[in-house]
């Protein structure tokens, strides 16, 4: 990037500077200078740190290969990121009210959080659902619940993200069935399914079936959407949960990309055209606290993805090369102590996501280590994004940190570290083999333990946790509680749905689904027929469980 004479001169001056700096140094503010991921950071970065970087090949221009500077030519100057707060709790009716509240306050997309029984494919009245109904998200048993959740919201006018994985086909089918009832054609539906089962085995652990049939459900869904729901983002390949489980930034990046490439390979194997489905894949990253490290992560992600898509998977459409991503600030960085401080943590994390070129963003609420967020906390979180967008000026120019010696050097390092992991995963036999062997799970658990030890040894200061602690702190923020009545109401409602529907039709569609699953038909199409006649999520999963089997995690120490 620079002429040799110039670099030599910088090298000499840096040596002198080092001597001078040591002479005037009065000590160290911390024992080691490391990132959140434990990477050593130098005191000063200079042109020498990016001397080998070829601008055209590695950095380039926004909207141009390799997209280090962003996936669009104009980025936030023509369109801000989507402000999308993930929410859902209690009954479908409560969730519907929260959505109207968020839309009325300027939120631009919906994002549905489901409760654990829904994520695991159990109806609310299943024995395993005891105590969990409506706790971490909204309870959905049948189409009747989805009708309530989206009551008064025209599905042709909003984009909706649904955080659902193992039963993703069922929830998408329900959403499509609601659209049918509203008279909105499938072609007009916009939104995203998480639908990323691989990271469930790796980190989040909400699975139902073993990997192979799970991947078939996903490739069926991809095929169906390519043909009928063309604007739908079929998989949101997620690093978020991997990071929350304790991984480093480079692990988050590498494991997520490895998962993405595994889906792409599976779809290609199933006979699909990469340029037809790849434009509908998107990513979901965590915005953790180490500001520059995170920005480097997003920039490196785009570069690695574009290169693989073009060179390895031979995608021809530019749209297939673009790594578009959603970001959520790091839940695991929040503290239960002095929870108001979480507003600041979230703001800095959100800023890194914006400087990293995110397409959509969820900012966590200050009270999330204590309970589901209250209305007030959610509003502050949303306002944080609006302040970044409209007041700070960071959205005025594209990729403003490009050219920073530090950020470019970190982007290079992040890319190299991720590539090394991708190679290791391949050498170990691929993603499924690594899941089976517990490779990812072990790497993540080790990183999480190291991080905890750094905090306990005070190598890492967390305000309010191991320093600046307030004794006898009194909590002064409102806490949202889910009424135990929710579970009772929801159980009664699903029972009533089962009584009121045409049970012959339900039986017939479920039998057809089983036949389809045993054969080669498209499972999403068969599931759509089941949900239209109000078969419940639990019934559909129970129909598939004997065909596909149930996943059991290999023991990992």
């Amino acid at each position, binding site marked *: 990037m620079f002429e040799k004479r110039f670099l030599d001169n910088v090298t000499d001056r840096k040596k002198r500077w080092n001597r001078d700096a040591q002479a005037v140094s009065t000590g160290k503010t911390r024992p080691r200078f490391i990132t959140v991921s434990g990477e050593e950071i130098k005191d000063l970065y200079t042109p020498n740190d990016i001397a080998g970087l070829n601008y055209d090949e590695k950095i380039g221009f926004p909207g141009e290969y390799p997209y280090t500077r962003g996936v669009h030519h104009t980025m936030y100057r023509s369109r801000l990121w989507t402000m999308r707060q993930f929410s859902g709790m209690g009954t479908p009716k409560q969730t519907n009210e929260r959505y109207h509240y968020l839309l009325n306050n300027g939120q631009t997309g919906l994002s549905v959080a489901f409760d654990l029984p829904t994520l*695991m494919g*159990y109806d609310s009245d299943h024995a395993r659902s005891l105590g969990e109904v409506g706790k971490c998200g909204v309870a959905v048993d049948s189409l009747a619940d989805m009708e309530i959740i989206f009551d008064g919201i025209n599905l042709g006018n909003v984009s909706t993200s649904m955080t659902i994985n193992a039963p993703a086909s069922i929830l998408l089918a329900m959403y499509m069935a609601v659209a049918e009832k509203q008279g909105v054609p499938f072609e007009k539906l916009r939104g995203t399914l998480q639908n990323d089962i691989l990271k469930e085995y790796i980190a989040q652990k909400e699975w139902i079936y073993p990997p192979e049939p799970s991947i078939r459900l996903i490739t069926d869904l991809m095929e169906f959407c390519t043909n009928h729901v063309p604007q739908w983002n079929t998989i949101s390949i997620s690093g978020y949960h991997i990071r929350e489980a304790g991984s480093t930034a480079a692990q988050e990046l590498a494991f997520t990309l490895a998962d993405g490439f595994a889906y792409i390979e599976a779809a290609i194997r199933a006979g699909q055209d990469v340029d037809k489905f790849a434009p509908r894949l998107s990513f979901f990253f965590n915005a953790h606290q180490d500001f520059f490290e995170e920005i480097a992560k997003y920039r490196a992600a785009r570069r690695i993805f574009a290169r693989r898509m073009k060179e390895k998977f031979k995608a021809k459409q530019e749209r297939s090369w673009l790594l578009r991503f959603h970001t959520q600030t790091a839940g695991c960085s929040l503290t239960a102590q002095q929870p108001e401080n979480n507003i600041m943590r979230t703001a800095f994390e959100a800023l890194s996501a914006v400087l990293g070129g995110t397409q959509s963003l969820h900012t966590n609420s200050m009270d999330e*280590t204590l309970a589901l967020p209250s209305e007030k906390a959610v509003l502050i979180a949303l306002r944080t994004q609006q302040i970044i967008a409209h007041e700070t000026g960071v959205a005025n120019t594209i990729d403003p940190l490009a050219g920073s010696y530090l950020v470019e050097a970190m982007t290079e390092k992040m890319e190299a570290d991720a590539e090394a992991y991708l190679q290791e995963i391949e050498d170990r036999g691929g993603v499924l083999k690594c899941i089976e062997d517990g490779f990812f799970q072990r790497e993540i658990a080790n990183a999480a333990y190291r991080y905890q030890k750094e905090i306990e040894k005070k190598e890492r200061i967390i305000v309010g946790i191991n320093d600046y602690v307030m004794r006898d702190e009194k909590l002064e923020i409102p806490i949202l509680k889910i009424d135990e009545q929710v579970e009772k109401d929801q159980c009664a409602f699903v029972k009533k749905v089962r009584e009121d529907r045409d049970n012959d039709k339900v039986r017939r569609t479920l039998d057809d689904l089983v036949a389809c699953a045993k054969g080669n038909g498209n499972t999403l199409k068969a599931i759509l027929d089941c949900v239209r006649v109000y078969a419940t999520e639990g019934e559909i999963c129970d129909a598939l469980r004997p065909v596909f089997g149930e996943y059991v995690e290999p023991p990992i120490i």
Partner: protein
Amino acid sequence: MAEKIRVLLAKPGLDGHDRGVRVIAAAFRDAGFEVIYTGLRQTPEMIVSAAIQEDVDAIGVSILSGAHMTLFPAIRKLLDERQADDIVLFGGGIIPDEDIAALEKRGVARLFTPGATTEETIAFVREAVSKRGKKEDIM
């Protein structure tokens, strides 16, 4: 020389957030405890049976789903029913203060919330288990 403290770490309910329980497992092992980790989605019945079978001194339960008011009392009840009430029951997770107070009244020895250190957890288990030992001697 006292025998090694044996602890069963368990995750009941449907949530899969096992970062905390794994960190605790690693820290307990480093502290010299014998650790048995049940894995995810254990029912109270499975947890109590495992604890009795493995003859543990303590059960540590991790819950981050909000189902703590249902699951801790269920485990406590089973322990009492099977005369295994000498096993120390403790836990951790996202649990509001008022719920902690209620659960500690209902026989959960201690609940750790986000920000707790592995050191305090280890110290707690050592003390709770040794106290319990003394009680047994007197009896």
